[in-house]
């Protein structure tokens, strides 16, 4: 076992002052959605924290999640979280390739058996192992082998968490999510297309700070970020209540920043932190930029019946079956009337 330095050691070696560390802890508390009163506890824990080994596996994905993470504005993620974790394998970011990369993965697994975190982005194709391979290893085999000695698995992005776009109808590769395959390890889902970078970092920070995984919702997502809907935290919510809606993307309502419900906003059924954490260093989020929420952090978001179809529209087939039902109704009615007429005739005869 190699000796693992604590985060306190690392920061000291880098010449980070106590003030810098306090600032970092305050940002971490904010990141974890913990009250500022928790900062001393976080400082205490972080000083003792040892950098966990992280293995990042990329399967059927677009690298958008990695792009998102490397743009995280959290406590200088690149400088600190990445310093405080040991990212031992990430085939997009690491310099090594081929056998050397795979050797690094195996070395990290052996050295940190039972301790390391596995981060996965992308879905796993079950249709044919050849659909997606790394170094000749199928995604399924690599996942199962790597997860074996992991402390926990974090599914980054909607593809890893729920199957995402590869898993969308008609799902040509037979794509499945991490939680579909990994049953004997804790799995944390951080969905989104891509996920909010701060949320990815927060899960790592939580693990780093408290050595445990966050509290999860019914879809395995951290409650701190996925506990409330976009709609409930949306600054445009009052317009919804007042019945003021944008009808098109360029009408008066759109210019006045009214509610985007009629333009297909999935905010009411989407659990995510966009409305508070926001994107691009807190600049804005889609609704603030005038576009309805797509619901990208929800299972099956790609197949929810159209991004611009309002949430309350039913998902009806063509009118043909309904016309069929109408014809059937008329026929039944006619038959009933004929029967009724016969009965009527009998009674009137009797009368």
């Amino acid at each position: 076992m190699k000796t693992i330095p604590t985060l306190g050691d690392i920061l000291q070696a880098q010449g980070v002052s106590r003030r810098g560390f306090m600032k970092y802890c305050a940002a971490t508390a904010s990141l974890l959605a913990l009250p500022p009163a928790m900062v001393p506890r976080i400082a205490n824990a972080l000083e003792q924290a040892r950098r966990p080994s992280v293995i990042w596996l990329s399967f059927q994905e677009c690298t958008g999640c990695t792009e998102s993470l490397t743009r995280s504005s959290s406590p200088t993620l690149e400088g600190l979280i990445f310093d405080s974790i040991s990212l031992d394998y990430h085939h997009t970011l690491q310099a090594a390739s081929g056998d050397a990369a795979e050797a690094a993965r195996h070395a990290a697994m052996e050295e940190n058996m039972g301790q390391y975190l596995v981060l996965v982005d992308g879905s796993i194709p079950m249709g044919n192992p050849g659909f997606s391979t790394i170094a000749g290893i199928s995604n399924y085999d690599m996942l199962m082998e790597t997860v074996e000695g992991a402390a926990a698995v974090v599914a980054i992005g909607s593809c890893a968490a729920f199957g995402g776009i590869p898993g969308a109808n008609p799902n040509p590769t037979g794509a499945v999510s991490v939680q579909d395959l990994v049953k004997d390890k804790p799995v944390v889902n951080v969905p989104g297309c891509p996920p909010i970078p701060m949320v990815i970092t927060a899960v790592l920070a939580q693990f780093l700070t408290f050595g445990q995984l966050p509290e999860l919702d019914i879809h395995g997502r951290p409650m701190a970020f996925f506990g409330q809907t976009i709609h409930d935290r949306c600054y445009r919510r009052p317009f919804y209540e007042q019945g003021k809606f944008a009808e098109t993307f360029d009408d008066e309502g759109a210019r006045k920043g009214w509610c985007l419900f009629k333009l297909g906003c999935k905010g009411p059924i989407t659990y995510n932190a966009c409305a508070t954490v926001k994107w691009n260093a807190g600049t804005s989020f889609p609704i603030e930029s005038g576009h309805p929420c797509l619901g990208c952090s929800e299972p099956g978001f790609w197949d929810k019946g159209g991004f611009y179809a309002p949430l309350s529209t039913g998902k009806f087939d063509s009118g043909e079956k309904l016309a069929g039902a109408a014809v059937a109704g008329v026929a039944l009615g006619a038959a009933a009337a004929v029967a009724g007429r016969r009965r009527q005739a009998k009674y009137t005869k009797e009368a």
Partner: protein
Amino acid sequence: MDLLDFARGPALQVAAYILVAGVLWRLVGIIMLKEKPEFSEPRKPGGFMAALKVIYTRSFTAAPFKRATLYPKMLAYVLHIGFFVVIFLFVPHIVFFEGFLGFDWPGLPNNLIYLSGVAAVVAGIALLVRRLTHPVLKLISNFDDYFSWFVTLLPIVTGLMMPVRMGVRYETLLAIHILSVAVLMIWLPFGKLGHTFLVFVTRGTTGMVFERRGAKT
């Protein structure tokens, strides 16, 4: 497919088939019945105007019964108007109708919708209490009355729960709400809720018959 997808898709779809088929079945079945033979000379022709007149006059209680029926009548109006407002003037509902009608109309702010919904529920409960305590009414009530009451109130109650939430997830409540509407749609043609589409047919028929027989309408 999750519960909400099921509710928005197949459940609503099947309910719509049953609603359309059921309503046409009953309407055609009634309209195509043979008219009763007239055993006396018609006093007046009893045309369309006679039908319209009764459709209007029966909206109000005849003078001798005014006092006796004031309470339930008021409650019934609150229930009906509240229900109408909630269904047709809540913007997400309008968007739903626009989905297959292709046109929309202005809605009301949500607080007025909530108010109408609560008023309708309170009126509905008061009417049920009356039905359960009124000796005659209790005697003539059957399963149809109670079940029709239940499936009518259910969508309003589930709808009103959505802003309140009470610890239940929004998408679950929305699915339950839509499913409760599907139950209402399926039951509507067959029980006493058939008055939704029959009320003016029956009133009109009564008007024409009464006019021909020279009764006061």
